[in-house]
């Protein structure tokens, strides 16, 4: 519970994704992979073992032609606060190696690769399929490892990885702010996907800070979270003007009565 009882008000970083603006282009996915040294294989068509911290799902209203509709839904890690927002995220609760931890200061669920021994309990526990296992050692074509960023350590075979809300960007921003003896500003800490989205569909910030854009956006009448019934308390909110999309957000058992 480090930082859990700090006098300073804790931050709660989160995202609001406007699905009405998302065009499904995939820029967020590519920006994320490039930022976080995510590896790639020659065949990535088996999506079960294809590592994408951010994944854009294409969901459908399940209606027959010609009434079919699609909606694109980008899914990073939800950085769940767990029941009562106490930090009991589904994955954190089950990790036997403390390789994943809840940071009360930021609300970010971390993943420490060198502690992980690959039992994959967390993957089973995560209701959002946000976690991925390295079945193989990553291989970059000759020379391409030069494009890897030193801010994120490359992973190895046998460990689980997932979206970190680009935590290293927060660290860099914090260091800079500390030197200049001030707080980190909203624009200084933005995730790679937020920065890249050409449609401006993703907004990132401190959900606890009334000055931040996300604070207001999450209160939109069209805002919802995924599988809210599970009380995982995700920090990613979605906005959609379409009712079927909002309904699909909690559709974890088909035909289940609300």
């Amino acid at each position, binding site marked *: 519970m480090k930082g859990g009882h700090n006098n300073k008000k804790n931050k709660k970083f989160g995202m609001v994704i406007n699905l009405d603006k998302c065009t499904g282009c995939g820029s967020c996915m590519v920006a994320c992979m490039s930022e976080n040294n995510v590896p790639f294989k020659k065949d990535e068509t088996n999506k079960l073992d294809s590592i*994408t911290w951010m994944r854009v799902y294409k969901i459908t209203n399940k209606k027959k*032609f010609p009434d079919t509709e699609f909606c694109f839904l980008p899914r990073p890690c939800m950085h769940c606060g767990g029941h009562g927002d106490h930090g009991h995220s589904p994955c954190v609760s089950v990790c036997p190696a403390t390789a994943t931890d809840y940071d009360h200061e930021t609300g970010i669920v971390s993943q420490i690769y060198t502690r992980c021994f690959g039992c994959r309990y967390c993957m089973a526990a995560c209701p959002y399929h946000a976690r991925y296992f390295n079945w193989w050692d990553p291989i970059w074509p000759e020379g391409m490892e030069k494009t890897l*960023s*030193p801010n994120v350590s490359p992973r190895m075979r046998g460990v689980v990885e997932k979206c970190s809300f680009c935590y290293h960007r927060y660290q860099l921003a914090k260091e800079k702010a500390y030197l200049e003896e001030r707080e980190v500003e909203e624009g200084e800490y933005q995730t790679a996907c937020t920065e890249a989205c050409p449609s401006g569909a993703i907004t990132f910030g401190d959900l606890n800070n009334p000055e931040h854009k996300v604070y207001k956006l999450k209160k939109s009448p069209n805002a919802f979270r995924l599988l809210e019934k599970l009380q995982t308390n995700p920090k990613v909110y979605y906005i959609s003007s379409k009712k079927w999309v909002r309904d699909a957000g909690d559709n974890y058992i088909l035909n289940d009565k609300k």
Partner: protein
Amino acid sequence: MKINRRNFLSLGVGAAAGLAFSPIGIKLMDDSSIWTQNWSWTPVPADGEISYKDSVCSFCDSKCGISVRTIAGRPVKIKGREDYPANDGKICPLGLSGLQLLYSPSRVRTPLKKVGKRDSNKWQEITMDEAIEILSEKLKDIREKGNSKDVAAISGSSGIRYALLDRFFKVYGSRNLLKKPSVQDSYKHLVSSMHSVRGNLKFDFENSDFILSFGTGLFDGFDNPVRMFKVNSNKKVSKATFVQVEPYLSNTAAISDEWLPINPGTEAVLALGIANIIIIESLYDKDFVSKYGKNFNDFKSFLFKNYNVDKVSDITGIETKKIESLARGFARASKPIAVFGRGVGDTALSLNEAIACYSLNLLKGNVDKKGGVSFLKDYNYINWSTINLDDIAKKGLLEGERVDEAKTNNVITDSILNRMPDAINSSRKDAPELLIVENANPVYTMSNTKEVLKSFEKISFIVSFSSFMDETASLADLIIPDDIYLEKREDCLFENGVNNFGVGLSSPIVKPLFKTENFSDVLIKIAKKLPSAVSNAFQWENYSDCLEDTFDEKWSDLEESGFIKEKNSYRYVIKRNDFAFPKSFFDFMTNFKSASIDGGEEEYPLTLIPADTIRLSSTFMANTPFVTKIVSDKILKGNYSLIQINSETAKKYSLKNGKVVSLTTPFAKDIKVMVNISEAVVPNTIVLYKGLGHKGYDDYIKDKGVNYNELISYLEDKDTGLDIAYGIRAKIV
């Protein structure tokens, strides 16, 4: 101590408690996970100082500004450049993954000379000087023999690079500088035939309140994708209406307000049906039409006679009620735009169909206005000294014939590349002695690959300037690899920016990694090795010198800021007084013929059509590994392309999801594809995504799926000569 039951138990409990409280278990577990992860082959990226370098992305013609993060000089990440006028801070997924091009395994690392047969794929490594020597000797010989007209080039460039090549061909004495046409050529034809001016058609989506798209992939990569994404985001705020008419539910259709599924190839008929309703219900702009429109009464009776709503409904497969409400919605909007050209605009549209759709803009008088369509002059920043032609050059230009049979008097269609293979194969034209290919990959991007390959066999010598081992490069006799855009300084013309146009300057992020050289530099070097008639036209020492000379007093500005932005927004570039329209009249159309689709309905009961997604590059540049990684498994699975087919149609042919079937068209037999049953396609239609089926490049894209161009042949528009091939008849076994 005697070991009895009591001692044994207490020792056991003690040991268990000790172990439980000691850190050894945790420590061992931690250590073991660290030991088993410290592999020497897991890279540890070197740390260093972070800095950002600005440049321009040249993956496509949008030429977006980029900002590259470097760590100790090593580029690690690309993002959009904030203050760049073309893209205003953002870029597309391909642009984001540009660093993967630098170290791509398919890069040509040194000039290569083919050893043995064309298709042998055996190469000899040579130096850049040797390569330049080989090519310039060839060019010298051909010119001396008086055959300068037999040198051809296929180019996909713009700006100074293209101007240099064009200048070279003029002084050398050949008219055969060819380009692959796109929907932009259809737009130019339309503007020329309707309003008698030379210019490109531009749509002011930003300020329109109703956008009716006839199958245009507005949000799948059309125009400048970043500009279009911003249009979409802003529309959601301003509540403008989007209607997408398309045979399948593309991304564009999915995020539009309404998707109207239409039978393939009948978009223009719908446009005429809508025009008919607008006229009958008297919803058109009467002032505008009576002031500028000729033939309006003929147009009216032509529509009334041929395109009543029931007939249109029959042809298009859209209910009459929907057509009527669409017509009214369009007509009642204050600034409606009808946009046309299928998909992202890789292929041209027949002039006839374009005019049919364009008529809706004319009926509403939403032309040359804010929120409407307008015309853009070619942006020219290159004014070099005039050139002197010697007798050989004059002879070549006057007597030489175009290998693609493009007419000299038609200034708009300056290239009908699609006609070249047939003209050569049927011996109507002699194959060129020498073909130069740069910024192009015709073997992949042209329709009917078999015919293209056959015609290439007859070309004596092929030189490729590709940076990558693409399909055309692997067939070439000589490869002189170009630097990629992250390694060179180059002018980058952007004509479809976010609200503007202009020219930018890319600058090298890294020194060339391999033995490559900027095409423009190589061209100048070659010209200097040729007789004075050619070399005199290239007064510059090298490309850098040429750049500075071209921009003259603007150079320091360009060098400093990285771009020159034209003051005017492009929507108002051609002012009313600048050209014939609307001072004079335009003619409404009075006849219409749909473009035909190859293949008999009896033998081929289904229609195959192409689809575009921004996650697949179908241009001369193939996908990067990151972008291929995010392609849906409903489009590519293993090495199979998936065909999208309606559930009813699938039932009719007893097709199951995931089943591998044989697809046959009049031009390709037994192509293996996988079935994806989808509710997002009109019945009796097969949808296949473009951008797959590469035979070149590297293992991350090679041999994955089917190239749509192999399944079709070119289809010529009778008015313009452009290749307008879109769908084709097909069957599944």
